[in-house]
């Protein structure tokens, strides 16, 4: 549905996007993740035809963003980072304007009702946009992006400024739309991208630092297994048994009731830590209090992927 080939974008001497290529099939939800200033928004602006690429080609639904800009714009619903709203307009006036500009005509009424319901704008339709809270402004703008039932949705930081309940609402909405639409959303919160996206594109310094499913990305950077285990056992016995399993490190958890021993265990990635612990517990007949395989934290993954040169090549895979 969306294809980028060797896309570059320069702002004077600054290269905001450097030789980016990827393609997104129909119906996929892709999360753009990266630090501020990484090139996420610029890439989105190129896809939405707002900015022309300095070099390279971009097609959306088979249409070139430079040659067939109007056709591309018909396909896309776009929520820019800046939430572009006319402060003096009422919410319903604004949506009517966008509806007319999008040539909805007869279909407008049903689309309008749907979008007001989906974005939860029912209570503010007759309010001035300039007087709305950040959350409502964000949702008004989201409604604008959805009103023409676009095949492609480009959402630049869709949940910024929303409270946790609204964030869950937006995520739910995105998942509902997922079946029929191709969606790109950007965020600098990794857990958010992990929660809604099928695929993550990590962008750093205008380049793609990593591309793939979240779990794959984590696996690619993690070079260790980690398990937290707590059992009812004598500490000495536990310690000697566990140490025989070629661990890299062990950190005891001191905040446990008497008679219970707990620890974070770390081993090389190739060691089947879970399996070995299972055998041990079965053999010793210990009672398990807690057993949690520990994943590398999101932020650790992020830093690993965007720093070391070794991993920045990963995107080509």
């Amino acid at each position: 549905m969306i294809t980028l080939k060797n896309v570059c974008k320069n702002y004077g001497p600054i290269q905001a996007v450097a030789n980016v290529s990827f393609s997104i099939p129909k119906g996929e939800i892709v999360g753009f993740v990266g630090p501020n200033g990484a090139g996420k928004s610029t890439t989105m602006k190129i896809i939405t035809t707002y900015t022309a690429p300095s070099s390279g080609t971009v097609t959306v639904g088979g249409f070139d963003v430079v040659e067939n800009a109007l056709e591309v714009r018909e396909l896309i619903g776009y929520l820019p980072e800046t939430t572009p709203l006319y402060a003096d307009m009422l919410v319903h006036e604004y949506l009517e304007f966008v509806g007319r500009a999008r040539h909805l005509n007869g279909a407008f009424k049903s689309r309008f009702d749907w979008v007001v319901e989906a974005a939860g704008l029912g209570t503010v339709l007759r309010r001035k946009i300039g007087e709305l809270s950040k959350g409502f402004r964000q949702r008004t703008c989201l409604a604008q992006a959805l009103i023409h039932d676009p095949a492609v949705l480009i959402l630049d930081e869709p949940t910024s400024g929303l409270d946790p309940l609204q964030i869950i609402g937006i995520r739910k909405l995105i998942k509902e739309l997922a079946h029929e639409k191709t969606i790109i959303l950007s965020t600098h919160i990794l857990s958010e991208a992990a929660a809604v996206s099928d695929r993550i594109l990590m962008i750093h310094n205008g380049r793609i630092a990593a591309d793939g499913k979240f779990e794959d990305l984590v696996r690619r950077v993690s070079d260790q297994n980690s398990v937290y285990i707590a059992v009812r056992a004598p500490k000495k016995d536990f310690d000697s048994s566990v140490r025989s399993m070629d661990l890299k490190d062990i950190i005891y958890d001191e905040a446990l009731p008497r008679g219970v021993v707990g620890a974070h265990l770390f081993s090389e990635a190739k060691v089947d830590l879970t399996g070995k612990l299972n055998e041990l517990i079965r053999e010793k007949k210990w009672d398990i209090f807690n057993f949690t395989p520990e994943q590398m934290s999101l932020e650790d993954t992020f830093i690993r992927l965007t720093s070391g040169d070794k991993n920045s090549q990963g995107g080509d895979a």
Partner: protein
Amino acid sequence: MNDVKVIFKREFDAYFYSPIAYVFSIIFIVLNTGLYMFHFFFFGNADMRAFFSTLPLVLGMIFIPAITMRLWSEEKKLGTVELLLTLPIRTEHIVLGKYLASLVFYLVALAGTLTIPLMLLFLGRPDFGPIAGGYFGAILLGAFFLALGIFISAFFSDQIISLIITSLVCGFFVLIGWRYVPMVIDGWIPGLGSFLYHYVGVSRHFNDIERGVVDLRSVVYFLSFTALFLFLNAKVLERRKF
């Protein structure tokens, strides 16, 4: 054409969202008729020469920049330009819609000064040729300066900057049509002053029409400059450097 209408409606309404439109129209009418009445009581002529002779400078340096400054600058400041230019509407149509909104707004304000010829009709026997010519010229002049103002507005995200630059550029177009300014320029670079006077300056063309002499060349002058700046405006926006 439907697209132009959609943009036109929003822009025209936008003038009336805030009190600016009302304040603007009142000041425009009061100042112009006021300046005229001062002259009228002094000389007691039943014509509108005084009105039309001050019009280009007042229009170009104050009123037109005030009408056009927000047209793109405000969009850029609010970020709505990003919405507008990713709608499935051709850039030329957006420019045209905005332009027509400003033009109609200007015409409404200009119509407010029709009280003067009405008054003259009761007080004396004015020659309606020059008055009709004057209004025709004022429409053409406004059309040109508005196109210029919108074009300049597309470069700045600050409305005040747009206002000042537009004011200066319109002022240049007016002053270059006065006899003395080109003469001074001719003194520096021979030929340049008279070239500007004949082909660029506004006053000469406006004065012809305002006298009731509607020369086709003057009409072409106004219309071609209007079209040129509207065209350039669309081109500038399509390059999207900002």
